[in-house]
């Protein structure tokens, strides 16, 4: 495959598409598919054939506003229909060329206007199982350009210049990491994609892998070229069977097109990759545990240093990045580092994909420029809290993150600002809570998650999360004391300071952040035996007897 051949494919794809007067895009992501998007697509195909109109019915990845699904977008008019079912296929096809179907049409311009789509630029526009669709939208151009026109150091320089930081949660500068792996010695190096997304309420990486798998592959291939690796692994959790199947198809197609394998684009660059399935352990998202899991060992973390960049898979230098990080690579290569650098806030560049869930009108996937105010995400893009309830807090960063209270919504979303507020960026889960949520109970929920997901290797995490859970449960059932609250705070400090890996170190965050902003709720539970939100079932304090 040469650049010329790639462009030929792109041109022919576009010509093929021009044959059609209309494109009916059906979102086939999990949320829509679970509501019958599959039957809807079949009905649309049938109706389109019967109508004699030149209609292309395409299945696509996640369009974003999942709560409005199943979604259909008709191009070129860009008419968006929501809650579409197979019964509606006839009226939609009939409306082509005329007035749109008013009863299905929805105006989500508020939802979309504030978003900037880099990672999700193809979501809703390509068929994830067709490599040519991806190529038709400039896919693999960045890889072939890098291979033929740039040095590995040039690639790293561009990534560094872009200011891209790791999207898995830590926010480590990506260029710096690539540089370290590149400088590490040895003849064998690996690139690994961390697709072990496990935060409750987070599905950004799944959507990218399912909706645009080639973007991840291209990002990894560019990374491999930059750091001098020839072998890659995509680590995906087995609970994502669609992602696994799409990636498997994508890898096969990429090999068939000569975009993976030996002497890619006629150069000396060889690169191929394999999918490795995780068995559903949250801790395997931690890079050293992930490495252990790929190697076939029990998924437990190891003390760092040595960092994987120096000694990773089978002791070789290994680059590990998150799905979304790799998904940013191709656009940066195509548009330049400066383009990316100019988006976002001072120290957090580019965009971030969030999975907006909880008590919010437009749940779904959104991509926003870094630095955007939290209220813009909640009130404008998310459409606010439904059913007349009041916003109480926004939880970011999953079980490692924290709760940001409603009066801090003017916070700009960036790694540092979220950290300063006692939460973290995390991988991009954003759970909105209203006045029906009890913050003690919320803290207990996340601590329970960390407790069951602890690998059990180090004591503070293994036994500490269990003790936190016991103490929080005592508060929730009204048997806790103020001394126990003090003990809990001390315990949080020890777990944070002494745990072996990030899971343990951040496990107290949900407790600490709710204590910081909602301490009165804890005191209500402990002193007045009352749950202000009416969630906890507090009984009269009687000693349980045998």
């Amino acid at each position, binding site marked *: 495959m040469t650049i010329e051949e790639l462009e030929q494919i792109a041109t022919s794809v576009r010509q093929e598409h021009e044959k059609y007067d209309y494109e009916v895009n059906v979102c086939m992501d999990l949320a829509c598919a679970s509501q019958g998007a599959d039957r809807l697509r079949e009905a649309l195909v049938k109706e389109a054939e019967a109508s004699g109109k030149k209609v292309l019915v395409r299945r696509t990845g996640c369009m974003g506003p999942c709560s409005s699904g199943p979604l259909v977008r008709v191009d070129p008019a860009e008419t968006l229909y929501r809650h579409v079912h197979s019964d509606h296929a006839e009226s939609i096809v009939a409306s082509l060329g005329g007035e749109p179907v008013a009863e299905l049409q929805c105006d989500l311009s508020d939802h979309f206007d504030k978003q900037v789509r880099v990672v999700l630029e193809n979501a809703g526009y390509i068929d994830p199982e067709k490599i040519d669709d991806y190529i038709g939208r400039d896919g693999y151009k960045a890889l072939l350009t890098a291979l033929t026109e740039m040095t590995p150091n040039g690639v790293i320089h561009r990534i560094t210049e872009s200011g891209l930081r790791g999207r898995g949660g830590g926010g480590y500068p990506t260029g710096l990491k690539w540089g370290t792996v590149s400088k590490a010695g040895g003849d064998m190096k690996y690139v690994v994609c961390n697709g072990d997304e496990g935060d409750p309420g987070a599905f950004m990486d799944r959507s990218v892998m399912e909706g645009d798998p080639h973007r991840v592959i291209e990002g990894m291939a560019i990374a491999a070229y930059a750091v001098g690796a020839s072998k890659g692994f995509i680590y995906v959790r087995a609970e994502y069977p669609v992602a696994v199947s799409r990636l498997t198809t994508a890898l096969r197609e990429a090999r068939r097109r000569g975009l993976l394998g030996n002497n890619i684009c006629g150069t000396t660059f060889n690169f191929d990759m394999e999918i490795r399935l995780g068995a559903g352990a949250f801790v395997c998202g931690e890079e050293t545990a992930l490495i252990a899991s790929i190697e076939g060992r029990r998924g437990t973390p190891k003390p760092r240093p040595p960092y994987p960049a120096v000694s990773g898979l089978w002791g070789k230098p290994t680059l590990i990045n998150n799905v979304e990080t790799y998904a940013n690579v191709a656009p940066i290569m195509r548009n330049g580092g400066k383009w990316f650098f100019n988006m976002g806030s001072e120290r957090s560049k580019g965009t971030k994909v969030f999975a907006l869930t909880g008590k919010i009108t437009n749940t779904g996937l959104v991509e926003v420029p870094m630095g955007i105010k939290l209220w813009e995400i909640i009130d404008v893009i998310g459409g606010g809290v439904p059913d007349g309830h009041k916003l109480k807090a926004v939880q970011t960063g999953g079980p490692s993150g924290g709760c940001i209270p409603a009066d801090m919504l003017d916070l700009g979303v960036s790694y540092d600002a979220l950290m300063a507020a006692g939460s973290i960026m995390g991988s991009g889960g954003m759970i909105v809570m209203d006045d029906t949520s009890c913050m003690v109970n919320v803290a207990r929920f996340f601590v329970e998650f960390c407790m069951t997901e602890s690998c059990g290797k180090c004591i503070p995490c293994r036994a500490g999360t269990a003790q936190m859970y016991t103490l929080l449960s005592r508060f929730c059932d009204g048997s806790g004391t103020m001394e126990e609250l003090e003990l809990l705070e001390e315990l949080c400090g020890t777990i944070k300071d002494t745990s072996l890996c990030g899971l343990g170190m951040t496990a107290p965050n949900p407790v600490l952040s709710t204590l910081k902003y909602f301490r009165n709720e804890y005191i209500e539970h402990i002193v007045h035996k009352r749950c202000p939100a009416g969630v906890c079932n507090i009984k009269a304090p009687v000693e349980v007897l*045998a």
Partner: protein
Amino acid sequence: MSKLKLATVWLDGCSGCHMSFLDMDERLIELAEFVDVVYSPIVDAKEFPDEVDIVLVEGAVASVDDEKKIKKIRAHSKTLVAMGDCAVAGNVPSMRNPIGPDAILERAYIENATVQQQIPCVVVPKLLKVVRPIHEFVNVDVFLPGCPPSADTFYAALTALVTGEPLDIPALTRFGA
């Protein structure tokens, strides 16, 4: 200087701590210069006095009765000493915790009984679901681990408590000592 009022109490324990206390032998006479034993399994008082300066509590809290007692003791004592591992950590009485009180009662009063197989429901106090150390019920001022703490430990600890000298407990004793 008037003598301090000393009490000792026996909750769910084996009385070994009291034995070890008595093992201070002639040093007891020396201590008697400073303290009056106002309540103890080894003296005649029936009611816990209203004001006690130092109370040594042996045993864990295992029954409703223990729980009532320890709360009363706390309310009427200046310095409460958890004496021995049962009081400090639950120790042997707490070994029933993983299986619960029903299994214990069943074993004691039904399986191992040759006559009158019946779990008592009056006089014998109800067992708590979980045996717990006393500091989970009331504030404890001094912890003296050991099973039992040695007579030397008692002597050193009591001397320090009476004189107000500093007390380095880990230097004297440990769990299971």
